[in-house]
């Protein structure tokens, strides 16, 4: 939501002139950033809306998409798209990426210019940090499977049961979804909106997996690490090997853990269950820069404007703990070709070069994509598109950093 200040200035100028403004809250594009995780229920998504209001300091009101993400799907599935609608309900402007500068021009044309436009400096937006009830960075992050695909997770809800303080994030290598063997990631992340932390004075989290019929798992009972610090909020993560699973099958994960809420003054044992469906979750988002030592969550590595700006970044050291991780020194280069296939679910492209060879690339979550001279995303690419791009090798394979398509 980096565009928020610009949008807020436009809201100040045009809301009094009868234009309605809404942010539409949808599934997280990048779960785990700042600790926020995908909500399980509408009530939790509304908690996210309240948290967005609290932390962003915006005045534009929010709408909240359904838990089936109906509006997101109907409006093109992009993470930060922007639309101007006329009074009859027709789309006047549809942008894959919000552009406050252009939006102001659109409204100047539609409604009329403003004599003294509000600037960002005129706003008094009070932004707040996300909640952190206990220590962080205590438990090393595990390295996730390469090209892992987010899977559908459903909580098993019981009447009168505790909220799901812990959210399960499940990912699998694509080979697993294709019926082959591969790696499977299970991450148990505390939901910061409940202000709870692990109680490390008690036995650590225990996970019991019930695999689908005929499937083989390297482990079915998982124990979290013993942590010296009394309480922390780091995720408890596991990577196991699986084989002989069929797409669409389900597995159950039963967890037991102790959670504490210092504000409310309680600690209690919690036992809950999740059902993981072995199919890609198109709304699962991509947890970038976390447990992926090749990708920095810090956007400061992006330089300037344009598709191929300046010199490539310096090679950086790898830290298996994931903290301050930076991409390793690696091969890379610039290429031209045509898009052979796009897989928006896994954020990957297959490119066919002039000699007819095909190569698969992962698109970095921070990648700058410029499509038909506009900033776009992977959804805007189609088979046959001519592209030029810059890439680098990473543990996840070849990683596209910048791309231009016409």
């Amino acid at each position: 939501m980096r565009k928020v200040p610009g949008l807020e200035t436009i809201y100040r100028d045009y809301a009094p002139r009868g234009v309605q403004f809404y942010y539409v809250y949808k599934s997280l594009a990048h779960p785990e950033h700042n600790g926020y995780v995908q909500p399980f229920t509408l009530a939790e998504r509304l908690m996210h809306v309240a948290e967005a209001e609290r932390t962003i300091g915006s005045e534009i009101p929010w709408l909240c998409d359904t838990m089936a993400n109906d509006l997101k799907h109907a409006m093109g599935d992009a993470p930060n798209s922007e639309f101007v609608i006329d009074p009859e309900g027709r789309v006047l402007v549809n942008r894959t990426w919000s552009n406050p500068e252009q939006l102001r021009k659109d409204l100047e044309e539609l409604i009329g210019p403003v004599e003294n436009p509000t600037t960002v400096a005129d706003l008094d937006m009070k932004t707040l940090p996300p909640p952190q009830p206990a220590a962080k960075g205590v438990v090393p992050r595990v390295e996730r499977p390469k090209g892992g695909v987010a899977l559908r997770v459903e909580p098993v809800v019981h009447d009168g049961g505790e909220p799901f303080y812990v959210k399960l994030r499940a990912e699998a290598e694509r080979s697993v979804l294709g019926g082959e063997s591969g790696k499977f990631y299970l991450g148990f992340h505390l939901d910061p909106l409940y202000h709870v932390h692990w109680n490390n004075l008690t036995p650590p989290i225990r996970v019991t997996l019930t695999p689908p019929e005929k499937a083989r798992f390297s482990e079915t009972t998982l124990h979290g690490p013993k942590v010296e610090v009394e309480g922390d909020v780091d995720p408890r993560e596991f990577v196991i090997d699986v084989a002989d699973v069929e797409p669409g099958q389900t597995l159950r994960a039963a967890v037991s853990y102790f959670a504490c809420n210092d504000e409310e003054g309680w600690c209690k044992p919690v036992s809950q269950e999740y059902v993981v469906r072995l199919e890609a979750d198109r709304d699962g988002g991509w947890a970038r820069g976390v447990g992926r030592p090749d990708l920095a969550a810090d956007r400061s590595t992006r330089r300037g404007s344009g598709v191929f700006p300046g010199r490539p970044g310096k090679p950086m050291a790898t830290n298996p703990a994931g903290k301050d991780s930076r991409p390793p020194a690696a091969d890379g280069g610039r290429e031209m070709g045509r898009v052979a296939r796009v897989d928006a679910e896994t954020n990957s492209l297959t490119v066919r070069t002039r000699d007819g060879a095909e190569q698969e690339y992962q698109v970095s979550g921070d990648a700058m994509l410029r499509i038909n001279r506009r900033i776009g995303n992977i959804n805007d690419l189609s088979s046959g598109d001519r592209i030029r791009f810059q890439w680098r090798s990473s543990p996840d394979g070849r990683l596209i950093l910048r791309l231009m398509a016409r």
Partner: protein
Amino acid sequence: MRSVFFLTLVFFGVVAPAFAQRGDLPGKRNFAAKPAVGEMLPDVAVYDAAGKEFPLRSLRGKHAVLVFGCLT
């Protein structure tokens, strides 16, 4: 004249499906394209911040700006 008509039919028969397929990805599920300029906003009901149902048709009567976003 008949040959021109026939050629026109062939043109649309060959080229139009190619354009129609531009948004389709062979062997892969494709997300819905965003509504084009001029199309109606889909008739979906979402929720306001208080959890009350909010049908998008209630935006009619004034211009509206919708921006998708989330915490991360």
